[in-house]
């Protein structure tokens, strides 16, 4: 790891409350890193969805399992890792929530939202054997955040129609 990289990590219980905790922690890091309001919203939402995925699908809401959250702040981006202790999954097995037959599905949009809101997104096999979501967002250029906090991409989420 580069010497100018800041690293934070925390182990979370498999609880609903962990979703808010993870979101709040990452939002503080994102704000301190200079991300604007819109990017903070996208980062916070992505962390929520990553931890919800670990809580519900990975750890199957089992309290004996943990959720491992890590944040790396490098010179040019914020990288977030969410690792569960489940059986893992392949991105190719995740149904497309935009497909006509899935539009009225009550679940399955978390991965889609993380992909839409972050610059980079992937899922790898983690050290626990579970799924490890790795996602990142490029840091705003110094002084680029507007008063309402927008930086980088447009405020409107990327459309993938």
């Amino acid at each position, binding site marked *: 790891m580069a010497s100018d990289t800041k690293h934070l990590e925390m182990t979370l219980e498999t609880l*609903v409350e962990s*979703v808010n905790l993870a979101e709040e922690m990452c939002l503080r890091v994102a704000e301190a890193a200079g991300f604007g309001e819109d990017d903070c*919203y996208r980062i916070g*939402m992505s962390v*929520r*969805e990553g931890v*919800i995925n670990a*809580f519900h699908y990975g750890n199957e809401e089992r309290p004996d399992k943990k959720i491992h959250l890590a944040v790396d702040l490098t010179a040019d981006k914020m990288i977030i890792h969410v690792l569960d202790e489940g059986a893992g999954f392949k991105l190719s097995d995740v149904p497309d*929530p*935009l497909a006509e037959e899935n*539009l*009225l*599905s*009550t*679940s399955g*949009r*978390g991965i*889609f*939202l993380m992909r*839409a809101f972050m610059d980079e997104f992937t899922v790898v096999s983690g050290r626990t054997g579970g799924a490890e979501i790795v996602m990142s967002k490029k840091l705003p250029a110094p002084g680029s955040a507007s008063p309402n906090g927008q930086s980088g991409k447009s*405020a*409107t*989420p*990327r*459309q*993938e*129609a």
Partner: protein
Amino acid sequence: MSLHATHRDAGQVTVVDLSGRIVLGDGSALLRKTIRGLLDDQRKLILLNLADVDYIDSSGIGELVSGYTAVKNQSGDLKLLHLTKKVRDLLQITKLYTVFDVFTDESTALRSFV
């Protein structure tokens, strides 16, 4: 900020005024309980006023869809009113904007149920 819900009758239509976040946990559960309660009372024409809802996650989206399906299955209708920008954007990228009837004016929304 947790979710709060109150409802009022406007003729055959029930307007549900929501405020807060519709997210995994209590927020999604309250939305579900509110819609199921209205259906139990035979109030099947429902207008969700989301003017004060500034945040919905995937669980909240799932609960909106679940409510919509439950109401439709009882030959009712569920429509949305006053979306905030974040919520509108979220419904657009998930293509649910094409599923729900969305209104910016309450009286127009109420007339649409007739």
